[in-house]
């Protein structure tokens, strides 16, 4: 505990594990590349992924470095407060299962936009939804890329720029050559590694406390006061609490890269099974991170964690070092890197689908692009997004990016979720309503974030913030719903309503 951490020094074990992971995933990519000959294989893995496999892949797509390092860090520095994020990020999954997963699988082909535009006019809806998708994907990419750069710099001693380029290049190799098949298996391997690594750490922590988590929590309370087991500073007002809760819960149901995964399974039944697995795995993971956070608090100590990284993000790696020395630190560092790669690959693929399937094939080519062209455009779009991801990572160097994950969830909860939900269940929903919902939700969320205390006070160092809440979802999500409903009621669309019966039939029965 007292000795200086080796974090930040080049760690040969970490580099060894990392090279092994990259070699394994590139071998998977090589295998997948030979099976990727059509657009359906490129974007939807040929729809041959099983429910359980997709459950692991969803977990791998969703559990980002923000949840592993960020929540463990938040728990290690403020205790209970980390649980507010963990629960919020989990409770979106049942909602995805009950309301979204099966209709989504039955109604669409590659993107959630397929579902929103199903009985509406294609062009305006596709354009609006593609903008919404790209906004969420870009923000999420910035958070992941900047996180990757900082993480790798801290753990491997590589320069920030080198780290960003390495992440971009490896991720692009997965997506470009192996498409969704490779991305799926990278996410499955990553989910297994992350859960295995977190379980190993948790067992090692608990072994020092008689395998009783309560003795661990009691030890933390003895040392840092009972406050670590009670709500702390994270939630300052009830409005803030509800707004954050809305973004976390409903954002999950509007994340394009998560929604896209439901097209990789053969039918609605498999889509349902995959959420069952994902919810189980992600819930276990969050319970584990809670133990890891408290483990780091007691075994590493508050001061040592904050000394390495003010945000506490290195709590889990530091804990690994205390428990298992350089070897375990190296393993956990490589797992964290793998985590980012898998999430970034999923994001890039969903952005590429919006560009090529929604914008190029459906809008520019009006749905009749030859097969080779679709696949070619999909690959070009992937390269474009890969380059954009690297540039964004370099551009936002040194910025506090934690708020961007929150913004991405708020954008998804306000920009995509309302339009998706209404398009599935409301016969009276119209083209104008859908466009208005996506545009107003995305725009309002983005503008309110700009005027929030997070940007105005923390980043721009102004004295006041015009908008009082850190998270805009409390305003922007109900607003998007209201705009959607009012616009649809003011100008009914007879064709859209007439198309609902067919949509309902296919949503329940699938393609018959």
């Amino acid at each position, binding site marked *: 505990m007292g000795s200086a951490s080796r974090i930040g020094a080049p760690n040969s074990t970490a580099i060894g594990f990392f090279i092994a992971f990259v070699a394994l995933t590139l071998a998977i990519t090589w295998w997948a590349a030979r099976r990727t000959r059509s657009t359906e294989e490129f974007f939807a893995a040929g729809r041959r992924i099983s429910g359980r496999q997709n459950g692991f892949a969803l977990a791998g797509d969703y559990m980002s470095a923000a949840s592993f390092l960020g929540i463990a860090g938040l728990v290690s520095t403020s205790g*209970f407060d980390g*649980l*507010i994020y*963990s*629960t*919020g990020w*989990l*409770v979106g*999954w*049942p*909602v995805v*299962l*009950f*309301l979204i997963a*099966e209709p989504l699988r039955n109604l669409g082909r590659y993107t959630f936009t397929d579902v929103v535009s199903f009985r509406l006019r294609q062009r305006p809806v596709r354009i609006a939804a593609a903008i919404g998708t790209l906004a969420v994907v870009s923000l999420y990419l910035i958070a992941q890329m900047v996180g990757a750069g900082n993480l790798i710099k801290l753990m491997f001693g590589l320069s920030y720029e080198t780290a960003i380029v390495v992440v971009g290049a490896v991720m692009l190799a997965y997506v470009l050559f192996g498409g969704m098949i490779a991305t799926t298996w990278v996410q499955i391997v990553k989910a297994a590694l992350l859960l295995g690594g977190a379980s190993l750490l948790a067992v090692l922590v608990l072994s020092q406390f008689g395998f009783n*988590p*309560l*003795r*661990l*929590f*009691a*030890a933390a*309370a003895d040392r840092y006061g*009972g*406050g670590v*087991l*009670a*709500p702390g500073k994270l*939630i300052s*007002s*009830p409005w*803030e*609490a*509800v707004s*954050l*809760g809305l973004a976390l*819960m409903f954002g999950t149901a509007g994340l394009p890269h998560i929604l896209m995964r439901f097209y990789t399974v053969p039918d609605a*039944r498999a889509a*349902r*099974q995959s*959420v*069952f697995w994902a*919810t*189980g795995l992600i*819930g276990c993971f*969050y*319970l584990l991170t809670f133990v890891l956070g408290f483990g780091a608090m007691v075994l590493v100590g508050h001061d040592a964690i904050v000394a390495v990284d003010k945000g506490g993000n290195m709590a889990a790696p530091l804990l690994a070092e205390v428990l298992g020395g350089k070897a375990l630190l190296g393993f956990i560092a490589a797992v964290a890197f793998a985590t980012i790669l898998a999430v970034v690959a999923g994001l890039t693929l969903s952005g590429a689908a919006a560009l090529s399937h929604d914008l190029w094939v459906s809008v520019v080519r009006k749905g009749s692009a030859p097969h080779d062209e679709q696949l070619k455009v999909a690959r070009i779009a992937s390269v474009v997004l890969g380059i954009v991801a690297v540039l964004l990572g370099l551009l936002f160097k040194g910025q506090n990016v934690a708020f961007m994950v929150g913004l991405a969830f708020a954008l998804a909860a306000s920009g995509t979720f309302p339009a998706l939900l209404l398009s599935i*269940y409301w016969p009276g929903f119209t083209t104008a309503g859908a466009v208005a919902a996506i545009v107003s939700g995305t725009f309002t969320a983005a503008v309110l974030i700009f005027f929030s205390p997070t940007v105005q006070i923390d980043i721009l160092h102004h004295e006041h913030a015009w908008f009082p809440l850190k998270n805009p979802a409390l305003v922007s999500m109900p607003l998007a719903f209201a705009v959607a409903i009012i616009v649809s009621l003011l100008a009914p669309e007879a064709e859209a309503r007439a198309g609902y019966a067919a949509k*309902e*039939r296919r*949503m*329940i*029965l*699938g393609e*018959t």
Partner: protein
Amino acid sequence: MTLGVLSRQRWRIAVALSAVMIVVYFGFVLLVAFDKPLLGTLLVPGLSLGVLLGALVIVTAWVLTWHYVRWANAHLDRRIKEIRAAGPAGS
């Protein structure tokens, strides 16, 4: 059972289960917002009410998910098969 009836039944169950999840989670969030000392109450050494309730929110998510999947696997899929077998006229 016709498609319309089945669709409405699925909708009712989906809304009811979502409502339970929303009430449980926002109940937890509002307790965090309004009564921090209550959640800090120790039930036994090392276990505060807040930590217990947080863990129960996660367990609730699992139970609801399991419940829906069991219903859909048994009931929904069978009805879908029947309606499909009846052909377009059956709807």
